[in-house]
């Protein structure tokens, strides 16, 4: 990074996680910036992004399309072409910086210690090759001494582990012979065949039915328990995040806007964009009279990111901040009143009070009522 850290007060994710366990987490993304030069100008896809994931833990990344969630995780795998992407900052996997690694070094890591599950399994699997051959290929590339027979045995074993019935015969099927959920299982088997320590799942269940989604989420949780791998779960479904993630990172317009433990973020969000996300999705168990409050407008262009807070133009609470601070100054990512692990990028003085008093009664009337009862009992 050529510029020095502009926000000295910003808490580093490394410090946050290091408080829990000594030593650095398995994956540390530090001040990552990804820009793409285009004919129209420089696209600021990811700006100053920092997060970390420990082994055995799941980080959920939420945000709408174009918020940089996929771009940032593709950078972890070194999937950006260095001719078309300008990457700065550092990404440390197991203590080793992977930004600027050569293609050969990157290839050794990719699919071996770090693997990815893609959203569209039909597009990610090759239609001409049997799934067994594709699985075996992934294994033999990282185990050059393994024979074809061993690789095939390993492929069958993985299909069995992800719950595909009759793996001995299904291993010779083509991708189109599998249903959507089964194909996603094949993708997961391929991602896990080399026992990766870090698994990046990019919208792994978005294209699936809820019943199949539940099966896949259960499977990922079981496998995580077995292999103690770190998982990054990219999704726009807050329900999936709530069930799967230990930590949540909310992204907006290429930046982290809120970061902290999952339960904390979902019950006491402090950033109006997170409030907006929570209020715009209905919940099957919530009060049917709860309102669905959309976020007005659309995200800003990444070609000309605004000078101040990127969410300012859509924010319905910026009138509570004095002057035009929101429009002129980008807020730092810093801890608010709810502990050092909960970071947010917002100028609002007392967000928790605003959330409890204004937002919660609209989106979850019964929860707000029980909470005010509790507080009145306490006082």
């Amino acid at each position, binding site marked *: 990074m050529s510029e020095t850290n502009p926000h000295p007060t910003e808490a580093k994710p490394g410090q946050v996680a290091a408080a829990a366990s000594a030593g650095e987490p398995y994956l540390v993304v530090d001040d990552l910036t990804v820009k793409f030069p285009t004919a129209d100008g420089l696209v600021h896809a990811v700006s100053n992004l920092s997060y970390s994931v420990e082994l055995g833990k799941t980080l959920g990344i939420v945000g*709408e*399309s174009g918020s940089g969630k996929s771009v940032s995780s593709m950078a972890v795998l070194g999937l950006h072409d260095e001719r078309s992407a300008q990457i700065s900052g550092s990404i440390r996997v197991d203590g080793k910086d992977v930004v600027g690694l050569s293609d050969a070094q990157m290839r050794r890591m990719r699919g071996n210690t770090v693997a990815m599950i893609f959203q569209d399994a039909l597009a990610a699997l090759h239609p001409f090759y049997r799934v067994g051959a594709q699985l075996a290929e992934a294994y033999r590339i990282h185990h050059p001494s393994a024979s074809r027979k061993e690789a095939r045995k390993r492929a069958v074993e993985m299909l069995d582990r992800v719950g595909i*019935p009759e793996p001995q015969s299904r291993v010779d099927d083509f991708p189109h012979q599998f*249903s*959507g*959920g*089964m194909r996603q299982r094949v993708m997961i088997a391929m991602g896990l065949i080399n026992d990766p320590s870090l698994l990046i799942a990019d919208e792994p269940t978005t294209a699936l*039915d*809820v*019943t*199949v*989604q*539940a*099966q896949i*989420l*259960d499977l990922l949780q079981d496998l995580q328990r077995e292999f103690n791998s770190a998982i990054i779960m990219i999704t*726009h*479904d*807050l*329900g*999936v*995040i*709530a*069930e799967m993630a230990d930590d949540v990172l909310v992204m907006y317009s290429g930046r982290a806007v809120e970061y902290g433990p999952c*339960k904390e973020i*979902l*019950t006491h969000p402090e950033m109006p964009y997170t409030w*907006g*996300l*929570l*209020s*715009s*999705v*209905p*919940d*099957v*168990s*919530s009060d*049917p*009279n*709860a*309102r*669905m*409050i*959309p*976020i*007005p*407008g*659309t995200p800003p262009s990444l070609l000309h990111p605004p000078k101040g807070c990127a969410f300012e*133009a*859509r924010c*319905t*609470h*910026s*009138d509570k901040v004095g002057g035009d601070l929101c429009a002129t100054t980008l807020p730092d990512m810093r801890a608010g009143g709810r502990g050092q692990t909960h970071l947010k990028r917002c100028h609002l003085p007392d967000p928790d009070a605003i959330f409890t008093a*204004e*937002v919660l009664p*609209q989106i*979850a009337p019964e*929860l707000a009522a029980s909470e005010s009862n509790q507080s009145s009992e306490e006082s």
Partner: protein
Amino acid sequence: MSEHTSFEEQVAQTHAANVLDPDAPAVLTVDNLRMYFPVKSGGVVRRRIGDVQAVDGVSFEVPRGGSVGLVGESGCGKSTTGRLITRLYKPTGGSMKFGEHDQDLATISDKEMKPLRREVQMIFQDPYSSLNPRHTVGTIVGTPLRVHDVVPKKQTLSRVQELLEVVGLNPEHYNRYPNEFSGGQRQRIGIARALALQPKLMVADEPVSALDVSIQAQVINLMQDLQREFDIAFLFIAHDLAIVRHFCPEVAVMYLGKIVEIGDRESIYSGAHHPYTQALLSAVPDIKQATTGERRERIRLTGDVPSPINPPSGCRFRTRCPIAQEICAKHEPPLLQIGKRHKVACHFPGRINQPPSSPITAGLLGVDAQGSPDPGASPSSDLTDQPGYADTWFDLDSKSFGRA
């Protein structure tokens, strides 16, 4: 946005969930609708070797100005049902009575269908592929007006601009192309096009599933506004159970071409009696339950949906059903009304983990508990599969027909 709205203004513009009007007359009555797609053999003589029973005997009513949700896994026939109602397919059997004159959309000729197309419109799932990229928005929204000769040619443009304003787009943008709009805006264009002919019934096939979450609510609220303002009935096809709950006071759950449970919002979401509905609801990841720690037990459905070419005998859900018994393979459960506005097609309907010990339908079908013919009993004459709801229904506690 150039101007700032405050949070209070923002909330004031939103809507609570749609409410049910129990007395509204039906605008569409679907009775025993069937759609079989032929499966042909390979080779020179392509013989018909079977049928994909995509929709097999579906009956329901859409009340005027109301909305009915159709939910189910992919391949359950919910989209086919929507396409049958808009007559993009001609059904194999059954009837679809529409409008004041009860015209049957299933048997009507294409010529007679044309005026009716004004009244039944469709909103498509994918706002990227459902708009012609080479046409301007003005042409896209104006074409239905021209085809059906709704307004004089000179007034087409002003009407298009009115429509764009109604759906919350800038009327000055009529000469732009679809690629200049975001996903949410494109879906608004699709809605404006469907609205142009002032339809009585809109079939919305997954209208928001291709949109970002923050945009979904905008489009849902827009559809609620339009529904209230123009008294449009909606058949809302979606797989997102939470959105369907918000939009539809009445919901039908489909499985493999059949409706397995239908009822008002309360009956389906808080009192589901069919094991499939229960499994479907328990599979939805839920923010609140995950954060408060009251995790309900997830009912795991194993395996995949069976092939609709060769559906299982008896109840189609029995191969994946956690409570299936012998009778389920022998007899198909009738869609039995068990509440004021609640019907379920199951031999063992009950709350989660509390199914009845013996099949409640055995007596009605004239068979014993194992499903074998019972010489002492005859099928009940009370069993009718009519669309809509009767005044009397089968009471699960007393195991007899009557008013509650």
